[in-house]
């Protein structure tokens, strides 16, 4: 026991530096894979150097190899032949921390190492057999036993044996300066006295002053046991074994090296004497270098003696360095470098190394005074730095090398060297210089184990490294440099500030700082605090390069973080948060490489308190989220969200309590989503699309458009999209968390309350959340049978959200003010609900279906897309084949909804559109349900007649209604029934008929003669019945007389109307009728298309309405005046439609139209003349027309004269006129066919249609049916032969009175005449063709 003592307190000795050597061995020396005998590792400790050689040393052994096998002082026994194999001797847990500052004996064990020369303290550890077996050792494998560096140390030691220390209390070591503090001392004394009485106390020597030499041992598995005590001794053995051979090699080397050395020596000497130029030296150097390079492979034979020999001539060169060319110096340094690598590898003369250090520093330094070297010394500097790093490597191997470096005399020089290196690193002119400087520094640091020296250099090194690492705009550093610097910094931090090194620092005082007795700072707690503060700042600025492009740099920084977080956990605790954040950022950057994230996960697993730190970071990130979202930096947004998401995941996996975070996260997420998407709504709103009417048609027809996925509502720009994807991922994670439910509740609550932008965000989040939750539930559902509550919960939440969504969709302000995104999200919720409820969702359609269809008619394009997708999905989920089946099956619900929409105070275009689609899809069966809706449409038409587009739309609906109504089974008409009747109507009475009739009359007269005579002069009381079954002929003939029988109701009016009073399908029929009647008010509409569409509506309805004549004829009466005015419409196609409608009237009303057609006739002729004739042959016709204008019937004249000639003169007729012409022809044909018009009109028609006879067989047939004679006459007259000579009656062929009926080729003639008739003016002389008889 040394040291000063005042009886009670024993103070440490002044210079306690002690080195203890450890030796490892194994017994048995070879590991047997089969035997069961125990395998021991023996550790023996002896004192190597001590200031008190005759004193034993007692030291505390926890944790150290002297104590136990399982206190982590050993590494696992590693197999050197197969890298993945090892025998585990690690205990599972960490050694327990034992700490009692006042009486160490009570907690720790102590051993005494005998004094120098008196042997060693030996302890034997048994490696458990089962561990060896577990490792499956095999024959031939070699194993290495290793000590961990960390455990080579002690917390307490003293120069004394355990016996001497008996009765002395051992205290934790404190620095003497601390002890000197009188207050503390007194207080302590008092305390201790109370506790322990007067027994002496010692705190031993400074633990740092006890060093260990680290051995290792390799053992071979079985066979010849080869125990190697340490690597060093192995080498020694080898060298003795091979001494003979080595000597030979050495001699060879010497022989090879001698000539160039001699040459160089001479050259250098002569140069020094100014006898030769530098060129000779250079050549000699080159020669030497070549030789060295060729020999450098034989490292083992190249010993330091040989190296010294070679260096001798080089030293001459170096001496002349100022005069010699740079090239020579470079070569020289290259030679030196080879020497370092070979001969001086393990051993270099201390003196020489000192000199070289000075020289190399001089060469490497920038501010070299040698002017000659200035500016061109880059390669030289590189070489110098290279040599430096090799020098330090050699010194490290050389015994006493390190001591020589840090020896007080050398420290200033070392400082200069360090400065030069740092300067090279920071300001090196090329990256090569920087890199070599860095490697030199690395080499120096690895060589220095003296903490004090390192501590001196630490601030300088760190700040220089920081200069390199802090990203700056002006210089981009080589990534290798950055990587190296980071690695260096990491190892430096570890060795200076590592927790194992700083754990037991003396507290230090302020006074200490001012103590200039020792150069540089003193390692105390105060120093540590100050340093760690500084380091924090440096780290903070360094961490900015985390998003460097190169993954090497990222990995390096991850390693640095790992060092800070793990090895310097206590000392750099202030930097932990920052470092952790960086690590998280790195993890999300290289997720695919996952190196950083592995580090991170490992760290979090090992240190639970890091989770706390991470949680704090997470919290602050979350809080900053909205602020970042407000910025324009999309990358930053994505990174932050991703980071949050990652951190959340990590913490969740580690079961950290995240309740507080959850609170913050919902609110901030909402704000963030709002901010992140704030311009997306604006973006789309400008995008409004006006073409909406066609969309519904698309749905009806569009199986090809089935989209099965929603586009994301909140997606705006590209950058936003990525951000939203990140947010989605975050939400997914949150939804998997245990607090998902409360988060959901929160969101639901605000969904119900919020408005506008915020609501969109709320809805979006909730939907995302629910999706996540539901997915999980369903996946859990598949595998597990959990109690019902667990599963019901999300459904209940979905239910709530569904209710909110329905409110959104059905609310009154849906059309204008509502945020379309909220609506789109509501649609998504419907789909979700449908997905959950499957077929049960069908009942919900009562409320849910219409809004979807309504939105399909929306003006916002994405919303429309959304609605279509939603419709398709609803159909799929609720088990319908497709969307149209869905609509058809639920058309009653739609009817109801549409009725409310149309009956409401305001009408949007969507409702009629939906109605239109419904009717088209469902067909006639729906019509009976629509009566009140049609009523509403009528009312709407009345109220909104000033809105042409709406009116058009409403009529489009009506038109579809009409089109579908016509298909009602009861209303489908047999097309033939009416026609036969109609044709019968105007069977012309020819002469034979008249004769027949007169005969009949006569007969009847004969029969009734007696009766007639009875009631002479009286009108007949009964109508005459026609016994022949042909009612019309005689009836027409005798019309005048039959009118009188009005009191009787059994025969007259005649039989064409059935007795059955009501129309066939009352509701549908009445609808049709009232729609048709309604058209009268809109036919004068300003939109020509609308007018045409109304007319075509009438065309569709008329055939059906005509089935009930009592309604039909009044309708004609109502519509007639309006139709007439349409004949003068400025749009040709409207005129054509009007003509068509008139034609239909004629077709179905027949006789009823007679008077009207006759009234109309002048305007038809007008039309014909105005629209058509004028277009044709202005010159010929026009003049004629003008000439005859004064007469009563100018048009008639024109027609009679010109109509038949027209075909030849027509050159071109424009399209509208041609259409009218066509329409006119059609209507004329129908008039001819169905209406018994008078003969004048017939003649006009004949004239008009004449030119067409050639092409239109039907026209000819109609004309022929009506009045074949007139037809014939017209043809004949045209041809100019028959009219003059032989008037021929071409009526009934069977007529006996026809004188020419027997002619065999009569038809032939006719056809011939016709041919000539069409053949225009160039004709064969007609007379020539008359058959001669």
């Amino acid at each position, binding site marked *: 026991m040394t040291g000063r003592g005042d009886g009670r307190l024993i103070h440490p000795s002044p210079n306690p530096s002690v080195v203890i050597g450890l030796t490892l061995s194994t017994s048995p020396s070879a590991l047997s894979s089969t035997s069961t005998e125990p395998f021991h590792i023996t550790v023996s400790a002896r004192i190597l150097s001590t200031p008190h050689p005759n004193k034993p040393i007692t030291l505390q052994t926890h944790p150290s190899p002297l104590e136990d096998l399982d206190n982590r002082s050993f590494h696992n026994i590693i197999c050197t032949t197969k890298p993945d194999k090892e025998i585990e001797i690690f205990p599972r847990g960490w050694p327990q921390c034992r700490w009692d500052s006042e009486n160490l004996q009570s907690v720790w064990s102590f051993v005494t190492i005998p004094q120098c020369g008196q042997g060693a303290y030996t302890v034997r550890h048994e490696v458990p057999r089962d561990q060896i077996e577990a490792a499956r050792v095999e024959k031939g494998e070699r194993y290495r036993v290793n000590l961990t560096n960390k455990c080579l140390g002690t917390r307490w030691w003293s120069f004394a044996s355990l016996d001497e220390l008996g009765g002395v209390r051992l205290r934790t070591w404190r620095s003497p300066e601390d002890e000197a503090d009188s207050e503390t001392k007194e207080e302590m004394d008092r305390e201790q006295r109370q506790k322990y009485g007067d027994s002496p106390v010692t705190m031993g020597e400074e633990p740092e002053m006890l060093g260990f030499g680290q051995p290792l041992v390799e053992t071979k598995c079985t066979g010849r046991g080869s125990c190697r005590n340490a690597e060093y001794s192995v080498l020694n053995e080898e060298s003795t074994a091979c001494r003979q051979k080595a000597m030979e090699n050495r001699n060879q080397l010497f022989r090879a090296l001698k000539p160039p050395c001699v040459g160089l020596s001479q050259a250098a000497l002569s140069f020094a004497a100014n006898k030769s130029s530098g060129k000779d030296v250079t050549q000699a150097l080159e020669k030497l270098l070549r030789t060295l390079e060729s020999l450098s492979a034989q490292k083992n034979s190249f010993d330091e003696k040989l190296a010294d020999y070679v260096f001798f001539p080089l030293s001459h060169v170096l001496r002349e360095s100022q005069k010699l060319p740079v090239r020579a110096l470079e070569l020289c340094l290259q030679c030196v470098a080879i020497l370092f690598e070979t001969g001086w590898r393990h051993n270099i003369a201390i003196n020489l190394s000192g000199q070289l250090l000075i020289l190399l520093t001089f060469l490497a330094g920038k501010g070299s005074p040698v002017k000659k070297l200035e500016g061109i010394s880059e390669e030289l500097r590189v070489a110098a730095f290279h040599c430096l790093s090799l020098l330090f490597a050699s010194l490290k191997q050389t015994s006493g090398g390190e001591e020589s470096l840090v020896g007080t005399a050398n420290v200033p020089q070392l400082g200069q060297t360090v400065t030069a290196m740092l300067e090279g690193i920071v300001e090196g002119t090329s990256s090569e210089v920087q890199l070599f400087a860095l490697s030199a520094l690395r080499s120096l640091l690895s060589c220095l184990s003296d903490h004090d020296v390192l501590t001196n250099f630490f601030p300088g090194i760190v700040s220089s490294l920081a200069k390199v690492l802090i990203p700056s705009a002006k210089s981009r550093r080589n990534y290798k440099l950055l990587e190296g610097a980071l690695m260096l910094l990491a190892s430096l931090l570890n060795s200076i500030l590592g927790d194992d090194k700083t754990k037991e620092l003396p507290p230090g005082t302020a006074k200490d700082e001012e103590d200039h007795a020792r150069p540089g700072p003193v390692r105390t707690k105060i120093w540590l605090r100050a340093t760690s503060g500084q380091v924090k700042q440096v780290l903070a600025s360094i961490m900015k390069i985390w998003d460097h492009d190169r993954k090497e740099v990222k990995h390096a920084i991850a390693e640095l973080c790992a060092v800070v977080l793990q090895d310097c956990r206590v000392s750099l605790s202030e930097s932990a948060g920052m470092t952790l954040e960086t690590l998280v950022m790195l993890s999300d950057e290289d997720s695919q490489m996952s190196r950083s994230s592995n580090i991170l996960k490992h760290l979090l697993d090992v240190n639970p308190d890091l989770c706390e730190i991470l949680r704090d970071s997470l919290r602050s990130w979350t809080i900053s989220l909205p602020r970042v979202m407000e910025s324009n930096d999309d990358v930053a947004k994505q990174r932050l969200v991703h980071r949050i998401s990652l951190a959340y995941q990590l913490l969740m996996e580690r079961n950290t309590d995240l309740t507080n975070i959850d609170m913050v996260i919902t609110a901030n997420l909402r704000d963030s989503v709002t901010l992140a998407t704030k311009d997306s709504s604006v973006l789309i709103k400008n995008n409004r699309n006006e073409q909406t009417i066609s969309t519904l048609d698309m749905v009806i027809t569009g199986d090809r458009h089935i989209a099965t996925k929603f586009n994301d509502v909140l997606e705006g720009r590209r950058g936003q999209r990525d951000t939203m994807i990140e947010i989605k991922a975050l939400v997914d994670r949150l939804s998997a968390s245990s607090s998902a439910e409360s988060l959901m509740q929160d969101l639901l609550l605000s969904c119900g309350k919020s408005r506008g932008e915020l609501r969109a965000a709320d809805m979006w989040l909730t939907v995302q959340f629910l999706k996540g939750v539901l997915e999980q539930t369903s996946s859990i559902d598949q595998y597990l049978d959990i109690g019902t509550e667990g599963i019901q919960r999300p459904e209940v939440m979905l239910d709530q959200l569904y209710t909110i969504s329905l409110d959104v969709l059905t609310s009154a302000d849906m059309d204008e003010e509502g945020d379309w995104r909220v609506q789109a999200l509501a649609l998504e919720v419907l789909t979700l609900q449908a997905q959950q409820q499957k077929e049960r969702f069908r*009942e919900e359609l009562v409320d849910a279906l219409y809004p979807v269809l309504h939105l399909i008619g929306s003006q916002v394009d994405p919303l429309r897309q959304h609605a279509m997708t939603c419709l398709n999905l609803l159909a799929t989920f609720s088990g319908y084949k497709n969307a149209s089946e869905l609509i058809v099956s639920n058309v*009653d619900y739609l009817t109801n909804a549409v009725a409310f929409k149309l009956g409401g*105070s305001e009408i949007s275009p969507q409702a009629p559109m939906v109605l239109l689609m419904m009717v088209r899809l469902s067909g006639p069966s729906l019509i009976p349900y629509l009566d009140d809706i049609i009523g509403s449409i009528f009312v709407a038409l009345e109220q909104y007649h000033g809105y042409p587009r709406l009116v058009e739309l409403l009529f489009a609906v009506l038109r579809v209604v009409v089109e579908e109504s016509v298909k009602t089974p009861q209303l489908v008409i047999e097309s033939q029934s009416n026609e036969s009747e109609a044709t019968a109507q105007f069977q012309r009475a020819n002469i034979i008929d008249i004769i027949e009739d007169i005969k009949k009359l006569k007969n009847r007269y004969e029969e009734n003669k007696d009766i007639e005579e009875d009631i002479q002069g009286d009108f007949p009381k009964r109508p005459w019945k026609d016994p022949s079954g042909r009612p019309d002929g005689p009836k027409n003939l005798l019309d005048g007389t039959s009118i009188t029988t009005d009191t009787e109701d059994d025969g007259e009016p005649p039989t064409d109307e059935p007795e059955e009073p009501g129309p066939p399908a*009352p509701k549908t029929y009445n609808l049709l009728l009232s729609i048709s009647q309604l058209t009268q008010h809109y036919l004068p509409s300003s939109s020509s298309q609308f007018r045409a569409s109304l007319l075509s509506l009438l065309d569709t309805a008329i055939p059906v309405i005509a089935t009930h004549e009592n309604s039909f004829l009044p309708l004609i009466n109502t519509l007639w005046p309006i139709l007439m005015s349409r004949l003068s419409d400025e749009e040709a196609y409207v005129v054509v439609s009007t003509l068509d409608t008139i034609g239909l009237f004629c077709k179905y009303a027949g006789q009823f139209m007679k008077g009207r057609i006759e009234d109309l006739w002048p305007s038809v002729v007008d039309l014909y003349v105005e629209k058509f004739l004028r277009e044709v042959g202005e010159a010929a016709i026009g003049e004629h027309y003008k000439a005859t204008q004064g007469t009563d019937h100018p048009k008639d004249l024109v027609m009679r004269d010109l109509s038949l000639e027209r075909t030849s003169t027509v050159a071109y007729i424009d399209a509208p006129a041609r259409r009218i012409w066509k329409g006119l022809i059609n209507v004329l044909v129908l008039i001819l066919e169905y209406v018994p018009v008078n003969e004048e009109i017939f003649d006009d028609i004949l004239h008009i249609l004449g030119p067409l006879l050639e092409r239109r067989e039907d026209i000819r047939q109609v004309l022929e049916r009506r009045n074949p004679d007139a037809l014939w006459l017209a043809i004949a007259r045209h041809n100019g032969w028959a009219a003059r000579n032989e008037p021929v009656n071409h009526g009934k062929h069977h007529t006996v009175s026809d004188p020419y009926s027997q002619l065999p080729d009569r038809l032939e003639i006719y056809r011939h005449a016709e041919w000539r008739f069409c053949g225009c003016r160039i004709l064969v002389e007609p007379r020539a063709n008359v058959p001669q008889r």
Partner: protein
Amino acid sequence: MGCLTPVTFDSCESAAGVDDSFDKERINKVPFSSGQVPTTLPPPAQPVYVLRGHNSPIHAVAIIRHNSRLLTGDADGWVSLWSLATKRAVAVWRAHQATILGLKEWGDDNIISQGRDARLVIWQLRIADEPGLEKKLPVEGTSDDPKQPWMLHSLTVNTLNFCAFSVCSDPGTLPSPTPTSQRLRQVDDDRGLLVAVPATTDGQIDVFHLPSQHRLSTIPSPRDDAKTGMVMTVQIFHQRDTLLLAAGYENGDVALYTYNRSCARWVTQYHATVHSQPVLSVDVAPSLGFFYSSSADAIVAQHSLMIQTDTGSATMQEFKTKHSGQQALTVRSDEKILATAGWDSRIRVYSARTLRELAVLKWHKEGCYALSFATMYEPKDQLAAKDDGVDDYETLTAGQRREVRVKSTHWLAVGSKDGKVSLWDIY
């Protein structure tokens, strides 16, 4: 009761003592006197749904089976049974060859219908029977012979005067266990049924027993001279243990009879000429102690069921509503409100206690003839109405929740001349 004053919502709520769940905004309040139009009227109330499907005027509606089904009958004798959840017909058949006058349920399985073809028919139509029945509505065109439900009984009754029948459970010899606090619309299956219909002689009322189909008794006309004209409407009901019957006559008379069990006779308890026109409808609020009558004139009268022993007559208040022809007066089961279906196509809702007009519902374009309220359940009963025994709303499946929702909705079904039935959700 003099001229009615304009009623604000606040006052009418307190006056009516109506449920707090009144949805004020949705009720279309029409101001009584012109010139007092409030500056901002709430949007007019809309029906929740309109059931389309009848071709001819609806003459009878009844919400049955714990508010899960709705029965409607039209002028052509067609009856439709609708599901209130899906709003779709579950059974459609032609019950009678003439106008349906009344529809009621008997227990959960049976339905009573009365047509002008002088028949009163009891049909068995259980939930299980529904799938087998025709669902094609009359408006879609009638199949000639749709399948009818199983006919249990058929009774020939006088239906000349458009008077609907009335039923109540047969108290038998035992005093009725019916809770006095709640009017029973649903009839106890076990103990048979009493059916009140007009007798063949004008002014008389027959009471039949079902299922025995016996005529139990006949109530004579309240006036000896039989000048009351036809019986227009009857209501047979219990109050505490007493069996009562309220009737309205063609000449505007209203009468209340009590069944004296000891002598097995109906005793005229109250008789008054209230209306100048034929009475159209009477209904009762037993626990409130009133019954109400409406007629072709504009008066709705509130009669007390309490008999003042000294005068032997009950008090009566009449309210001149200025709207003549309020048919189908019906009191809701909680006896807080009553409603009338008007020939002017409006439905008027009154407070049952004060007869203040609370709301006017307008949707139909033609006169309304029939209405029916949903049975009001206490919140607790809503769940009790189900048989699952699940006591937590949150644990129900979505389908069950929907069912509960439908059953607890405060439906009001109105049938109109236009063949449509509107469903309202009010108060």
